[in-house]
């Protein structure tokens, strides 16, 4: 074996291969970002610095997202934890038989983050100060595959508790003398022993929580028995079931379980917040919040994609996080310039000869004449560039972008404040969050197409009454006092406030003056703040702009890909002489065997006679052989038209000739058959065929996509 430990991966007798870890000593593998398209523009330390920048930016964004999500789900987590602890304290008296406490959680969005949080809260170590309950709980998790039948389900539940590490130590079971491992009595005994060993009284004894993940996938027939068995042991065995469901309808339990089962359960429901509101909230608080400055600002294309994906395909938070992470990853791996996002590398590292390409591309971006305003002096500018000056301009660009982005966030908050005020006063606002999704608003803001809304607001402001004006000014002032950079606005508001008359009835002129002043200022202020981010120099370092999201990473078109691989294999090939090949149509005979067969498949009806399919395949191969022969003069198997009748012709000819020709023909026949078998089995392997017993040697067509 080469190298002693590299297995032969082509060995067909083995199903798995182990390749040991062999770190490359000469070139230790570090984690890197994907290679950039413009790798040549980078400098030596570039990739590492960019990776660090990516990590920093993403961690910052991720932490913020985590906090937002945490805040959204905490109330429900707390409520569920409380419910678990209370399950066996206030039981309704006078019931004919004890009811099994079941907590049903509807969670279409949060998924794993909520479940992790909940489990962590339930399993808090005793000495944690922030635990509200002195009582412990034991949690075991069940997934649908664990509960295929009743004994395996019971076994999972019993083992889930009994095998825990407790003061009892490891439970040793002797198969001959102990109870079966799916017997709930085993659990009862274990629990009793545990309570005695740890000296639990009725108050402090731990509840046993069984967590059923993806409850919709459990078999109701199995689960109703599990519920029955468990309900016979309560309250001695304080079991609590938590069902995690993702269907938004709360009646899953009622539609799939019988009344007899439901009667044994005491169901409590909890629903996590859901809907497009969550996504809006997340984007708002991460990218449009005055108090938080994201390192990378996402562009309208990405916001639209997020919204689309969330509302149409999969509204899970995990996907939102993944999309945002991929946006970051893509941003940092596409352009080497993104290394400048947080800080500029020092003069020393930039003045090395290896950094010249980087400097060049940077200088080009910074000083190249823009098409709109051709500068006459740019040649001089170009000559006067030094690395320190370059660094200075980068730093300036960074500051300018940051303040521009902040301006947008502040302006958004401001408009939102005014429009909310209008709504509260009973006027028609801008409809944000109601008729118009906030995501659309974000897109409009970033694209700078909010003029209409601003105009509308300014007109509305003019019409406000004195006391309304006073209220609005107060709110605006409060909003701006929290933002230290907006002193000018603060002063403006203060001066307007001072003019505003205290008396409500008199001086309508003054009211008009203040209202007009506010309205004019509002237009001017907002227009100065809401400038497109793309106008800032080097904007693409901090802003993803119109870069589309690589959606095929998450939402691929597998089917279309396979179909085009079969129908147009030449499009996947490398194009050397592109201009020539571009428009040339590829004949059917030029395609690989499987593609030929697949084209024939698409031409057929819902059922295919394998023999006829074979014959039609054969005709194409004959064309192929002829074309091949005529183009290269290569000795392809001897073949003439009218293959089927070849035999009769051959019989008439001379015996000697007959032998050779016959043999050649036989070989060709076998080859065609082998190629047909291979191509057909490949199509079968890809899932295009269904074998049917209805007609001898027929297959059913499964794909009806159109060949064009």
């Amino acid at each position, binding site marked *: 074996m080469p190298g002693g430990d590299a297995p032969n991966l082509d060995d067909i007798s083995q199903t798995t291969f182990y390749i040991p870890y062999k770190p490359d000593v000469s070139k230790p593998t570090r984690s890197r970002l994907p290679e950039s398209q413009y790798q040549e523009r980078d400098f030596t330390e570039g990739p590492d610095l960019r990776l660090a920048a990516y990590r920093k930016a993403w961690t910052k964004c991720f932490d913020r997202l985590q906090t937002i999500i945490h805040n959204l789900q905490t109330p429900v987590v707390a409520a569920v934890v409380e419910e678990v602890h209370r399950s066996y304290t206030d039981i309704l008296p006078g019931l004919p038989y004890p009811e099994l406490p079941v907590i049903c959680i509807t969670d279409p969005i949060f998924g794993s983050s909520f479940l992790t949080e909940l489990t962590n809260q339930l399993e808090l170590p005793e000495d944690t100060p922030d635990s509200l309950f002195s009582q412990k709980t034991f949690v075991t998790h069940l997934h649908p595959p664990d509960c295929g039948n009743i004994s395996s389900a019971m076994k999972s539940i019993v083992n889930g508790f009994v095998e825990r590490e407790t003061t009892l130590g490891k439970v040793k079971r002797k198969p001959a003398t102990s109870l079966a491992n799916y017997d709930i009595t085993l659990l009862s005994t274990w629990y009793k022993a545990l309570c005695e060993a740890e000296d639990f009284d009725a108050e402090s004894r731990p509840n046993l929580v069984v967590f059923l993940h993806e409850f919709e996938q459990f078999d109701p027939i199995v689960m109703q028995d599990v519920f029955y068995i468990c309900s016979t042991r309560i309250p001695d065995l304080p079991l609590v079931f938590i069902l995690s469901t993702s269907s938004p309808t709360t009646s899953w339990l009622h539609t799939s379980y019988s009344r007899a089962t439901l009667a044994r359960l005491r169901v409590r429901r909890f629903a996590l917040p859901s809907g497009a509101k969550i996504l809006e909230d997340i984007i708002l608080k991460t990218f449009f919040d005055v108090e938080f400055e994201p390192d990378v600002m996402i562009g309208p294309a990405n916001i639209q994609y997020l919204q689309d994906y969330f509302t149409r395909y999969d509204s899970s938070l995990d996907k939102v996080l993944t999309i945002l992470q991929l946006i970051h*990853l893509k941003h940092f791996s596409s352009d080497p310039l993104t290394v400048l996002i947080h800080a500029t590398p020092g003069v020393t590292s930039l003045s090395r000869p290896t950094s010249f390409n980087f400097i060049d591309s940077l200088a080009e971006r910074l000083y190249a004449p823009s098409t709109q305003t051709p500068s006459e002096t740019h040649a001089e500018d170009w000559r006067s560039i030094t690395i320190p000056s370059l660094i200075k301009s980068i730093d300036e660009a960074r500051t300018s972008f940051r303040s521009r982005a902040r301006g947008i966030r502040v302006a958004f908050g401001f408009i939102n404040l005014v429009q909310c005020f209008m709504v509260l006063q009973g006027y028609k606002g801008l409809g944000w969050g109601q008729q118009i999704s906030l995501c659309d608003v974000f897109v409009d803001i970033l694209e700078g197409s909010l003029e209409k809304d601003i105009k509308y607001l300014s007109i509305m402001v003019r019409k406000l009454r004195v006391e309304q004006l006073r209220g609005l000014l107060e709110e605006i002032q409060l909003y701006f006092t929290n933002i230290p950079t907006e002193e000018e606005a603060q002063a403006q508001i203060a001066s307007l406030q001072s003019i505003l008359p205290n008396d409500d009835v008199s001086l309508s002129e003054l009211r008009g003056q203040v209202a007009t002043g506010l309205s004019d200022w509002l237009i001017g202020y907002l227009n100065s703040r809401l400038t497109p981010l793309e106008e800032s120099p080097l904007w693409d370092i901090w802003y993803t702009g119109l870069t589309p999201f690589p959606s095929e990473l998450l939402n691929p078109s597998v089917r279309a890909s396979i179909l085009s691989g079969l129908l147009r294999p030449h499009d996947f090939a490398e194009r050397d002489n592109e201009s020539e090949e571009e428009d040339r149509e590829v004949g059917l005979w030029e395609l690989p065997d499987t593609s030929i067969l697949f084209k024939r498949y698409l031409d057929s009806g819902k059922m295919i006679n394998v023999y006829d399919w074979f014959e039609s395949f054969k005709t194409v191969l004959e064309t192929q052989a002829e074309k091949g022969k005529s183009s290269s003069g290569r000795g392809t198997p001897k073949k003439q038209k009218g293959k089927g009748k070849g035999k009769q012709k051959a019989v008439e000819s001379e015996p000697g000739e007959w032998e050779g020709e016959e043999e050649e023909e036989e070989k060709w026949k076998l080859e065609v058959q082998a190629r047909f078998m291979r191509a057909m089995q490949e199509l079968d392997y890809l899932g295009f065929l269904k074998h049917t017993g209805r007609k001898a040697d027929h297959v059913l067509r499964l794909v009806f996509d159109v060949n064009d």
Partner: protein
Amino acid sequence: MRRSGLIASNEDSPSSNEEIEEEDISASDDGDSDNQEIDATPIQHKKRAKSTHDSRPSFNTIVETSFDAYFTYNSSRAQTSTNVFSKLVLPLTPEEYSEAIRSAASNLKSVEPAILADGYRTKVFSRCMSELKEGFNILCYGYGSKRDILNKFATECCAKAGHVVVVNAFQPNFVMKDLFTSIENVPGVTDQELTSTAIEKQARRIYDFFAGPSQEHLYLIIHNIDAAPLRNPKAEAHLSLLAHNPRIHIVASIDHINAPLLWSSSESSSRKPHGPITDSTTSRGFAWLWHDLTTLASYDFELAFADRSSISGAHGGGVRRKNDALAPQNATAMSETAARHILASVTQKAQKLFLLLGNKQLESIEEAGDDGASDLQQFAMAYDTLFNNARDNFIATNDTALRSLLGEFRDHGLIVSAQAGSGSGEVLWIPLRRERLTSVLQTLQIDK
């Protein structure tokens, strides 16, 4: 009848006037080679003639979708000919098959996709590596066997970053246990206590090992995660547990067109836990990122176990395929070598009997003057005739002796028998086509 072709292909494409939006089936494609010219076969000529008669401009946006096609075809009666492939075409033996494919491969030039070019490949590899590091698992789709390129990825990239286990899940004899046993080759995994040999415990131990203090990473390369052994919910649960571990990275390939249905959206989106891993794993999932890896390569390795003599040989999987692979050689697909092996180990008398039957069969084939591409049973010999012949040649003097001679051949499928329809009793024949039978008989005669 022989040239009937695909009858249904003559049907005109229906419902071109229905107002249906164009279905974008060429999403991942340049789409520049629309309406490909289809090369000359009689059937195609007809079809083209019809469509030109339609004078439907090629840029028309109103196109029949797959839904229309489905309903059109289902509303009509399937019209196919009564030809039966397995009756009309003799199945190939493995030798014939591989010989034919080998000779075909030398004549054909295959299409080399751009993705396999070196420069592009390193880019793809570096991208995959960084995505794996960022906590995603990778799923490769697209037409063509992805085994070679993923193996390259395993040896060139993954082996330098951690332990690698390559899994050929497409093999019919693959079981989940193989995967775990292979992972246990990683030093240290077996040091932890294993309470029972149950597969769940094994999976849990592996999870705990890589979640634990050891800083090692595991790269799992799974060829065809959509293969039958991995389709059942249990196997999937184990895999999703491993896939959720931050230090286990999965790179898998799928080929089946409906493979994405294997995972629910929550499973395929569930992210790996970040930060310290708690002992109890509450969620499982794959965190897939999808990559189009169309290689256009043939599936020869994947289908190495498929029965090339049967039209359903590559279909389905699991139990059925396994049984097929283990079952004795298909009765009609006896190879020359196999026949020689059997003949070499039987008595002289038995060989004589075989010669007798074989020569008779050859004679009747030649009399018929057919090209041999049809059912061999028609050249069979009635048992009574054979018995008379055998007695005349002093091969077997009584029925019992003849039956015992035939027994050996029947057990190995070298002679097959059936009840003749016309009440003439049992008939016997050798399931070898003419030229093969000739060569076997020749060697047998030379040996004597």
